[in-house]
């Protein structure tokens, strides 16, 4: 297995301190620990106004009347805007389908949809004014699930659809549908000794980044606007914002502010257009900061999903076939739903070799909250279900669940259900082996000389058990996630790299539009520049729209794609520098013409280590600068009927072992340990890699036992938009997370690296569920699992 890949050998930069492979520290670390790092909510401007959004109180309704006069007359209020005040005919936006109104137009389609915006001199003035806007709603029936979406008399969430999916979906309330058929699942089922079916439900998760949506729009003298914003993709925002404002893109200058986490929730626009509109209307800077309540309505969530699976296997543990149907609820607007369908369907079988598959995935339009990107989308929901199935089949066969997975694990060369071969290492069995081999945490850690330490027990500080009813369970899971944008998307990034001598020292400046959301891209870019140019001092420029697009900070893609762009630009700079060197010094030493030349420690050296000259002497007062786009290998769309196609470029694999202790009487769970093994290809920054894995693992734990946005099925209204009732794991809920990092190079990727951010979120959830099943003997077909589900009181 390990022979399938080996770490890439790196010659250039191997001598440079702070290059790739080292755990260099974050360049923004000091500012973040001193409180000086300026997040989007920290922006401040002389004379600025505060924006406030009025949101719908019902999920689906016609707006019969809208009266803003009293709000507008409030002292301190500078502007109130509704749909009718939008400056151009472009009044909608959207990532792929422009179906989202900037402000509601005659109708609202979900609870919390923006209806009007207010600008005032104090947030309280703005809030009071917004409350004075009179909206009369005539409520409409709500679409809340597949049955109500596709019923013969179903209300259409969007009438007159003209997007490119409408021609192939069976109903206008279905955003996108992707079947994938390979082999003959029906015939293969006849070979099966056991057939196992299961229906699963995956709840709606919130990204719950801690820094709420916020930003500052400053009107400029040239009629344009400067926007300081927290986002995942500046250029995607720009393309959606500029036409609504009626401005050319170069008049909307966007700068990335500090981003307080993202996890997919900042892929769609939130307050960007509203702030710009108010700034242009009032001629004053406008700041908008959502509070936590509003944040729950202000961004898309993870798609809830219903998943039905059938697996067959022979007595000796070989899977014969898989059939599944995955229904994702996309809510009122499309957002990333088509891509979520693509991931869910193409990865529905998981990291297993199954030749005969019959898959269908679709996303609904409904009046539930809009759903879109969140860490691992599509693949996360599928992994929860197929891993539950793996345990079920193993149990039916009387096999060890890890052994059963090993027998069916995919390898390099295995074909995906889409017919695409996996053309890089796929160490699925090895990751499971490693995670199983880790030492088990000691039993009964709560016992101490002074009695039970409740902090180590289910229920924690709430003092619910001193050991009574507590049973330990262990569970395993493994997952596969595609890296980068798939299905034929032109997925590229742009990097501008400059090398010059400053005060006798060579200095590199790296400028990209990559959104640093906490993942550490800025750290890695500096490391790449050091490695490629042999220079210690690297400046990372602010991310803005003055440089070409970097693509999105999502899909685990930034280190691969923008990292690749930085590497590529550095290589071009190096060539240019060596060219200058040859011109200036070629006659001084024959090695200039004959040897492989490297840049190391601020000098030009031969691959034999002989120093030819100082870099600053080559550069003199010349600055060498390159701005260049870089793209990964192209992908293809999936066939709309068969799902066949080389849709993905790379995969990321992680496995987890969960150890839980369950108070079986009260249904309370303590996760004792959540061990992870992941193949990262090449760890450019090992400290950051482990940090990503532990963070992703914990988000998976959250969806396993506590995180869920609850929507009333009768009204489609959100029931728990606060941190009091939407619970995130605290440090007392989070176990130790030992991490085993495997580095098997993907030869197609820069340095052999793999995108790593999402994979740990996939397998964490099913591992915890498997452990709880192991402890309780219950079936548990939904996540999150709540105390009610463990005590028969749901």
């Amino acid at each position, binding site marked *: 297995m390990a022979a399938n890949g080996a770490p890439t050998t790196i010659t250039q930069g191997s001598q440079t301190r702070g290059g790739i492979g080292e755990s260099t520290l974050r360049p923004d670390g*000091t500012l973040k620990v001193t409180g000086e790092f300026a997040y989007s909510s920290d922006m401040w401007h002389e004379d600025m106004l505060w924006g406030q959004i009025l949101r719908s109180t019902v999920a689906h309704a016609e707006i019969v009347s809208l009266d803003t006069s009293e709000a507008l007359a409030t002292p301190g209020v500078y502007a109130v805007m509704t749909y009718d005040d939008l400056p151009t005919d472009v009044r909608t936006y959207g990532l792929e389908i422009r179906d989202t109104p900037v402000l509601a137009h005659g109708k609202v389609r979900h609870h919390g949809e923006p209806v009007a915006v207010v600008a005032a001199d104090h947030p309280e003035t703005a809030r009071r004014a917004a409350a004075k806007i009179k909206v009369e709603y005539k409520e409409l029936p709500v679409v809340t699930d597949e049955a109500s979406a596709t019923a013969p008399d179903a209300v259409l969430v969007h009438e007159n659809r003209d997007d490119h999916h409408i021609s192939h979906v069976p109903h206008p309330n279905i955003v996108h549908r992707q079947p994938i058929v390979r082999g003959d699942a029906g015939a293969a089922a006849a070979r099966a000794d056991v057939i196992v079916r299961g229906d699963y439900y995956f709840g709606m998760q919130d990204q719950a980044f801690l820094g709420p949506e916020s930003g500052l729009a400053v009107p400029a003298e040239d009629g344009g606007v400067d926007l300081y914003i927290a986002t995942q993709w500046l250029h995607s925002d720009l393309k959606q914002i500029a036409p609504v404002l009626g401005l050319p893109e170069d008049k909307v200058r966007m700068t990335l502010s500090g981003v307080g986490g993202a996890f997919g929730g900042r892929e769609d626009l939130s307050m960007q257009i509203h702030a710009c509109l108010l700034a242009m209307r009032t001629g004053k800077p406008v700041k908008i900061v959502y509070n936590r309540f509003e944040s729950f309505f202000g961004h898309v969530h993870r798609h809830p999903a219903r998943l039905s699976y059938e697996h067959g296997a022979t007595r000796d543990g070989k899977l014969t076939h898989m059939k599944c149907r995955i229904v994702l609820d996309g809510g009122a607007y499309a957002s990333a739903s088509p891509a979520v369908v693509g991931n869910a369907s193409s990865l529905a079988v998981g990291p297993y070799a199954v030749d005969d598959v019959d898959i269908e995935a679709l996303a609904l339009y409904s009046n539930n909250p809009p759903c879109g990107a969140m860490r691992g989308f599509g693949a996360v929901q599928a992994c929860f279900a197929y891993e539950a199935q793996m345990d079920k089949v193993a149990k039916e066969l009387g096999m060890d669940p890890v052994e059963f997975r090993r027998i069916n694990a995919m390898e390099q060369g295995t074909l995906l259900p889409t017919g695409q071969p996996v053309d890089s290492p796929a160490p699925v069995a090895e990751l499971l082996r490693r995670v199983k081999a880790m030492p088990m945490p000691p039993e009964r850690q709560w016992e101490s000389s002074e009695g039970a330490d409740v902090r180590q027990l289910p229920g924690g500080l709430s003092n619910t058990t001193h050991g009574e009813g507590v049973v330990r369970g262990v569970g395993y899971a493994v997952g596969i996630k595609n890296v980068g944008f798939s299905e034929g998307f032109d997925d590229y990034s742009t990097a501008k790299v400059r090398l010059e001598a400053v005060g006798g020292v060579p200095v590199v400046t790296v400028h990209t539009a990559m959104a640093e959301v906490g993942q550490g891209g800025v750290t890695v870019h500096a490391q790449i520049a050091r490695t490629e140019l042999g220079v210690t001092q690297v400046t990372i420029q602010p991310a803005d729209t003055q440089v070409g697009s970097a693509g999105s900070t999502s899909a685990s893609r930034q280190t691969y794609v923008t990292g690749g762009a930085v590497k590529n630009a550095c290589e071009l700079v190096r060539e240019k520098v060596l060219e200058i060197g040859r011109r200036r010094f070629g006659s001084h030493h024959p090695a200039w013409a004959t040897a492989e030349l490297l840049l190391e420690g601020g000098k030009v050296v031969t691959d034999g280590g002989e120093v030819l000259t100082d870099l600053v002497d080559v550069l003199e007062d010349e600055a060498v600068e390159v701005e260049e786009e870089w793209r990964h290998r192209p992908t293809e769309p999936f066939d709309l009927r068969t799902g066949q196609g080389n849709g993905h470029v790379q995969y990321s694999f992680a496995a987890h072992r969960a150890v839980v202790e369950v108070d079986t009487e009260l249904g309370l769970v303590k996760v004792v340990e959540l061990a992870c093994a992941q193949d990262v290809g090449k760890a450019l920054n090992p400290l950051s890699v482990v940090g990503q894995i532990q963070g992703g*693992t914990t988000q998976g734990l959250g969806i396993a036992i506590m995180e869920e946005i609850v929507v009333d099925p009768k009204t489609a209204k959100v029931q728990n938009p606060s*941190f009091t009732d939407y619970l995130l794991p605290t440090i007392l809920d989070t176990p130790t997370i030992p991490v085993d990092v495997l580095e098997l190079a993907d030869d197609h990727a820069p340095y052999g690296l793999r995108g790593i951010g999402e994979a740990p979120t996939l397998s964490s959830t099913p591992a915890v569920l498997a452990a709880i099943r192991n402890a309780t003997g219950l079936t548990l077909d939904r996540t999150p699992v709540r105390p009610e589900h463990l005590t028969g009181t749901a």
Partner: protein
Amino acid sequence: MRVNFTVNGRPQEADDVWEGESLLYVLRERMGLPGSKNACEQGECGSCTVRLDGVPVCSCLVAAGQAEGREVVTVEGLAEFAEDRAKDRAKNGAEERAEDRTEGCSGTVRGSGGASASLDAAQRWRAHGTDSQTGEGLELAPIQQAFIDAGAVQCGFCTPGLLVAADEMLERNPDPTDADIREALSGNLCRCTGYEKIMDAVRLAAARQSEGV
């Protein structure tokens, strides 16, 4: 209304404060101290943790008027606070936290608006981001340095509140068990790290403290 209180050893005054404003809002929007973060405004995340007369509290749940005449320490003043404490301990050899803060802080930060949080501040972190050798030339509290060194900072939004809470815990309990650390920090949510590196950072700070580093 007008509110006067001491922040990080310096007297501060805010005018035209709306009666419903929180201490957090006044710090962030009126005093130019946006280090304390607003993430939930209901005491469920700890991002706004400051010390009020020495006690860690959620500044979002303190009405601005309640801070009148009191002493507040925010993340912006944490390094100086820790340094004074260390000096005080060295001087007195006492384990008690210094009650009297020494004067002599030069310059005032006061501003009717968040001058120090203005747009050029937004640029500054990149200007500093020239190298991985963070912390150079800047005096940090031991807990701040430990957070950087242990990789406990990702997006960093929870960091200020965690630092204030963790610093106070180590002041009370210099040799905490893991369970003690978890209990003391159970009021501070982090969404990025999974808390493991935060545990590492607090252990590191405790170890350095006990070694007198």
